[in-house]
């Protein structure tokens, strides 16, 4: 793998950058905008603000917000119907990972037709998508810059991963002010998501120096600012850095892909409908333990980036420090539940393991994993209390 490629949208970053949304949409050819958001964001007034900016640029808007956390395929179909009926020609999402993934899914079907299932996997999209602008309201998913689209197949009860460079939005507008309206619990969960992106893409088999910079930056910023951001939701400096952490994590994962943690959490989220951050928090330390032997140097780098003093320690020891640091971070932001505590039934573990084996994210995991090994990790992650 001597040749690598790095994809990224045009990125507009900074407090107050939401004001750019109208001009941005107009610049890429929009005339009637389909605005995807969710109830929380609408309640916080961000959707209205976005519509104001869009209208100010002479664009008409149609608002769609019938969606839930871990968005479902039927929600996408409803949105597609609205999109087609309203004669829109561009898609804008303001919100967290859910509105973003719904926006991407509508875009796929709008220009390619068929069903979402037809595009599950890598590079199945054959026609360009409508112009897309994404403004995230959470710091975590990084979906505003990635080539990923994760949607729940309600029939099979699992998350489908749709991966295509065409899913990279045209413009990402990251405005940290939007983060101030989410609660501490959500801030913690999304923060862990961004953190996991950093760690998994850094140890990924597809990592390159270009992705490493972003991955380590995400790890560094989360380690420094997540605690502050959870403690004080109005701390603009913490929010701005968490937004940057999410952005860099997104760029890293979009280009280096993830690993076993995501391969496994995708299955859990499809089943339990819990926030992605919670399942990540439950599984990440155990996957790190599993992977440690495959790339101890990288784990040592992570420990250093998280501020651990590893001077003089043997490599294995130094690497292991990264896991300790992660556990202490999770504990500090009160994400201490195991999978069992958030509602997973032990009986489904064999099935989840089989599904995880087929998840695209497992391909880049630094250590190959068998079904049995995945099962073992699931069981270890079941009860957090027993381990600590």
């Amino acid at each position, binding site marked *: 793998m001597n040749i690598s490629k790095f994809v990224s949208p045009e990125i507009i970053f900074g407090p107050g950058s939401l004001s750019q949304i109208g001009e941005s949409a107009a610049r890429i050819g929009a005339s009637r905008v389909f605005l995807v958001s969710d109830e929380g964001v609408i309640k916080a007034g961000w959707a209205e603000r976005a519509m104001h900016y869009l209208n100010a640029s002479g664009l008409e808007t149609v608002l769609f917000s019938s969606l839930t956390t871990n968005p479902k395929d039927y929600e996408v179909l409803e949105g597609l119907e609205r999109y087609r009926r309203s004669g829109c020609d561009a898609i804008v999402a303001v919100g967290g990972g859910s509105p973003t993934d719904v926006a991407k899914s509508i875009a796929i079907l709008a220009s390619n037709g068929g069903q979402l299932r037809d595009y599950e996997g890598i590079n199945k999209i054959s026609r360009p998508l409508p112009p897309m602008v994404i403004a995230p309201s959470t710091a975590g998913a990084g979906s505003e810059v990635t080539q990923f689209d994760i949607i729940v197949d309600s029939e099979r009860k699992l998350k489908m991963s749709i991966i*295509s460079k065409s899913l990279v939005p045209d413009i990402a507008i990251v405005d940290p002010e939007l983060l101030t309206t989410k609660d501490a619990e959500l801030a913690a969960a999304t923060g862990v998501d961004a953190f996991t992106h950093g760690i998994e893409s850094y140890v990924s088999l597809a990592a390159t120096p270009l992705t490493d910079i972003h991955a380590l930056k995400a790890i560094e910023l989360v380690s420094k600012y997540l605690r502050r951001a959870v403690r004080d939701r109005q701390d603009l400096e913490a929010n701005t850095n968490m937004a940057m952490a999410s952005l860099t994590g997104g760029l890293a994962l979009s*280009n280096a892909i993830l690993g076993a943690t995501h391969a496994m959490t995708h299955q859990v989220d499809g089943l339990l409908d819990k926030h992605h951050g919670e399942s990540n928090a439950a599984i990440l330390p155990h996957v790190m333990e599993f992977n440690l032997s495959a790339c101890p140097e990288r784990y040592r780098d992570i420990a250093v980036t998280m501020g651990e003093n590893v001077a003089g320690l043997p490599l294995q020891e130094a690497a292991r420090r990264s896991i300790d640091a992660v556990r202490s971070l999770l504990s500090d932001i009160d994400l201490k539940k195991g999978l069992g505590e958030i509602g997973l039934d032990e009986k489904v573990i064999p099935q989840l393991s089989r599904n995880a084996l087929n998840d695209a994210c497992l*391909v880049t995991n630094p250590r190959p994993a068998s079904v049995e090994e995945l099962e073992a990790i699931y069981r270890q992650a079941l009860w957090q209390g027993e381990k600590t």
Partner: protein
Amino acid sequence: MNNQEKLLQQLTGVDSSKLNYYVELKKRNAEVLQQNRRLGILHQLARDINIDMSISDIIGRAFTKLPQTLPCDFLGLVTVHQGELTLKAMAPRNFCRIDNFPAHSPSQKVIDRKKAGIFNLKPEEIDHIRQTPAYPLPLKALAVAPMFKRDDVIGALIVGSIADSAYGERDLSFVQHLADQLAISIQNARLYKQVSRAKKEWEETFKAVTDPIFLIDTDYNVLLHNDRLPPEMNASWNQALSDKCFAKLHGRDRPCPNCPIDEIKRTGKPVFQRWQTESGLLLDLSYYPVFNEEKQLAAVTIILKDVTERTKMEAQLVHSAKLAALGEMAAGVAHELNSPMTVIIGSAQILARELQKEERPEDAEALEDIANCGLRCKRIIQNLLTFSRQDQLPATEIDLNAEVVRVLSLIQYQINRSQIRIVERLQLDLPKLTANGPQIQQVLTNLLVNARDALALADRDEKLIEVTTSLRRREDGRAAVLSVRDNGTGIAPENLSKVFTPFYTSKEATKGTGLGLSVSLGIAESHNGTIEVESRPGEGCTFSLVLPLETT
């Protein structure tokens, strides 16, 4: 490269990129352009294909255009009739031969399914196609589309290529369009042929009629005619400046007064007329209205029937019948008069002889006068009898001069009474000729009567009729000529041609029948002769009966 590496490469996507709208646009543009080009070709074909082209020509024309947009090494048209498939036409014309279509043949499949299809052929699938050695490369791909007549499949259009997998779905839809277009063209050609055959049948019927027929619209324009105009009318037809019937037929520049077309417009019923032309023809005209679908008068059919000959014959017949009746009457009268006249003559002669004996010569002379006049009466009666028996008498050897004397003896008195002098100039050494004597007398009588009538109107110091017999020598033989010349007013040139027309007369209605000359001409012609007219207006005219002596 193992599976994981392959997946990794896909994920990091060195080989893939975000899809580009410009590329998509170019692709769509190319599709639209191709579509346009194909529509253009369909349009061009629709325009190029004439209604009277054969199926083979149509296929040939399409074959020259198709390669511009579609791989096409063969174009064929298969028709289906009662389940039997036939290769009706193809291009190139001698590409192959197909004697029978097996069930697995692409054409049969397409016709059965009524749905176009693409066939990438294995050699055994086309072993029924016998390609001629001029085209050694086998067809590898076919696009076959059914041809419909309403909902029925009437055949299939086959486009073939020697390239592998030459056709895609888009090509197939074009081939289907082409098949639809050709089906319409072929249907049109077929209908056209039917219509033109029916039209030809009617035209031939129209032209087969020997009487002139015209179709004239309500604005007097001649729409159609069957080119059977009598030669006498050709001049006015050819010189006409417009297509109007009044110009073509009558040489006029405006509609004729009392035009029957006006009457038809009014009544919607046929009109029949008789018309005497300038050239002396007698025509029966029948005007029949032609109505359009809205039951409005659209045109008028005119049928001309030349009745000149027939009328002449009829007139002759009538005249002959009259003469026969007259002759019978005359014979009766003569017979009745014969006995009393014999008594009168006999008695007068006996008395005259006795008075001679009694030396009363003056009285005897008076009685001899009576006897002589009686004899003359008897002769007149005899002539009358001879004249009346004309039909029964066959042609015999006659002396033309004797016939003249006989007529004059009958009629001279009458003519003299009109203060007209008759001059006889008879050529004495005329050879005898074979003719019907009484008919010749009839002609001469007629000519003399006409001359007398002509002179009656003339203002002359001396009214004169000259009766001449002579011998004419010509290249085609000798002829006896009997002429009657008067010094009357003559005949106006424009009327000269009409004088032989039955019922044409310049005389008062009570006096003439208009039959005399036409009957006379009939008699002359039955002797292979003719009647010549010569007229100098103001000086008089000459009618000559010309009788050839030798029949040629």
